[in-house]
């Protein structure tokens, strides 16, 4: 790729790695696009990373060559949770995936689903409004309404899934779920694991990080047992 970044030599790839290795965010990649063009490739250790930054090329990847570029990648955290293996089954764009999508999209991502759940959405929005009106500080010093909106989103999803909701932000189960989910989100989308992802030889250094992943998972399991198993015996 002449126009792109030359990651062909070890020196360059290590340099690049130091530049962007742990922070592949949209702004850094936009700057690289301005330097190197609408398509460039970073060779990150063993992995090739191609970044596309124009409407035409987005169309090429997502639409025109949608089949060719339609598979999904994996990473080291994914491997931890899936057992380090042949995940190709679920990531490869193929007959199986196509069928799944067709089968599931048609009956479930339809206007019918929207029509049956929209009352719950509207109701949850009303709950937010009611609760905000009941907070005296909302009118004076102000409140972080995001906190209440988060409960609303949980409730919208829970009603969609289980036809049930949390009464308040203080529901002990909600508090715990939220905390653990947040922690897991951070772990899964952190940049921390890129090093080991790009350069397998560095994976041992990830052990601490992965240990935390596992701990969070175990704590969630304990919570889960406490509330859904033990409590209901």
């Amino acid at each position, binding site marked *: 790729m002449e126009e792109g970044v030359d990651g062909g030599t070890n020196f360059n790839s290590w340099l690049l790695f130091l530049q962007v290795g742990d922070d592949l965010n949209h702004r850094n990649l936009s700057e690289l696009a301005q330097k190197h063009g609408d398509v460039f490739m970073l060779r990150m250790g063993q992995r090739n990373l191609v*970044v596309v930054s124009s409407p035409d090329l987005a169309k090429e990847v997502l639409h025109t060559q949608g089949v060719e570029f339609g598979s999904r990648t994996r990473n080291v955290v994914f491997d931890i949770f899936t057992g380090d293996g042949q995940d190709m089954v679920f990531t490869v764009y193929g007959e199986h995936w196509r069928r799944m999508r067709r089968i599931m999209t048609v009956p479930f991502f339809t206007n019918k689903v929207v029509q049956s759940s929209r009352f719950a959405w509207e109701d949850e929005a009303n709950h937010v409004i009611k609760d905000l009106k009941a907070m005296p500080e909302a009118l004076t010093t102000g409140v972080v309404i995001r906190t209440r909106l988060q409960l609303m989103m949980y409730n919208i999803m829970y009603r969609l899934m289980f036809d049930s909701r949390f009464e308040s932000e203080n529901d002990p189960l909600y508090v715990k779920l939220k905390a653990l989910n947040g922690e897991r989100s951070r772990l899964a989308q952190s940049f921390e694991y890129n090093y080991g992802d790009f350069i397998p030889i560095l994976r041992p250094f990830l052990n601490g990080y992965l240990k935390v992943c596992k701990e969070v998972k175990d704590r969630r399991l304990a919570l889960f047992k406490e509330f859904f198993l033990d409590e209901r015996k």
Partner: protein
Amino acid sequence: MPVSNNLGGQFVYSFESLNFKQIGTCRLEFHILPEILLYSKPSLFETGTCRKMLSVLGPKAQSEKCGMDHILDAQSKGEISEDNVLYIVENINVAGMYISLSLSLSLSLSLTVIASQCPLSKAPHGLCAVVVVCIQESDVPPPVHSHLLDIFMWTFSCSATAAIETTLWSIEWGVAELVNNPEIQKKIRAELDNALGKGNLISEPDTCNNKLPYLTAFVKEIMRLHMAIPLLVPHMNLHDAKLAGYDIPAESKILVNAWWIANNPKYWDQPEKFMPERFLNANIEANGNDFRFLPFGAGRRSCPGIIIAIPLLSIVLGRLVQSFELLPPPGVKQVDVTEKGGQFSLHIATHSTVVVRPIA
């Protein structure tokens, strides 16, 4: 419809002959068994537990081997471990949702909808639904079973949180922009009052057919400037490919910088400005009809959650604007809209403190 039957609390969903590349053909069934978690761990692993449980559901259910039984069978044959079984149960719980967008969002979101059809309202917490993936009649080699299950459950758990979180981020950005742009807030309120009549809160049908063009444009502008998943979900080419004349080696990770495409001055007038007007009369939808604006991606792998997210954003933000004047806290002119990017995400760095003054 692939739904094969619906037996009280049991909801069975089956796929015929899913073709797994180079692995074989198998059939997957998803059972939602609301009461399964009543059973403590030891009994969970006794084959026949589910049968006992199903007896309350009537003879038809009893005659069929339920999903959990298959999993327990597989465990007793040593095909999967106890950990695998626990993992399934654990992950299926909503607590198991965390973000990882490296897989298709569609699978899990669909499953959540399946679950919604299950009458679980009676259950305390309503959380005790278990979706069991059962691999039946398969010529899939045994070691692949547990792997399939893990991956499937993993996918399921990922996407539900993705749905909660990404929508939440967008609402949060929306609130911040409403506070920082009082004139935009007024315009939205005026449009709602004119179109619906004062005091009539916006509902889903109002979000269709461009009945509220300014609110719609506002929601799009939120997604353009503060795109929740700025690099979309990474793609990959299985085989060597060509792109713009270049050779792309097999198994490269392909990122589409959708945020930059939607914020590049080459394609947008003053992209750094929050300006809903740019979408008025522009015929740019979020569904991928214009490749300058791809908040949900486009094509085969685009996010199917768009059908829920777009009306939901309009309803929530619309109702807030109709009910309150949203203001910065005393002594503050603008709330901080510094962004914080994760590997897959773009959200606000500081949660805004907002004063809400009810509208009479």
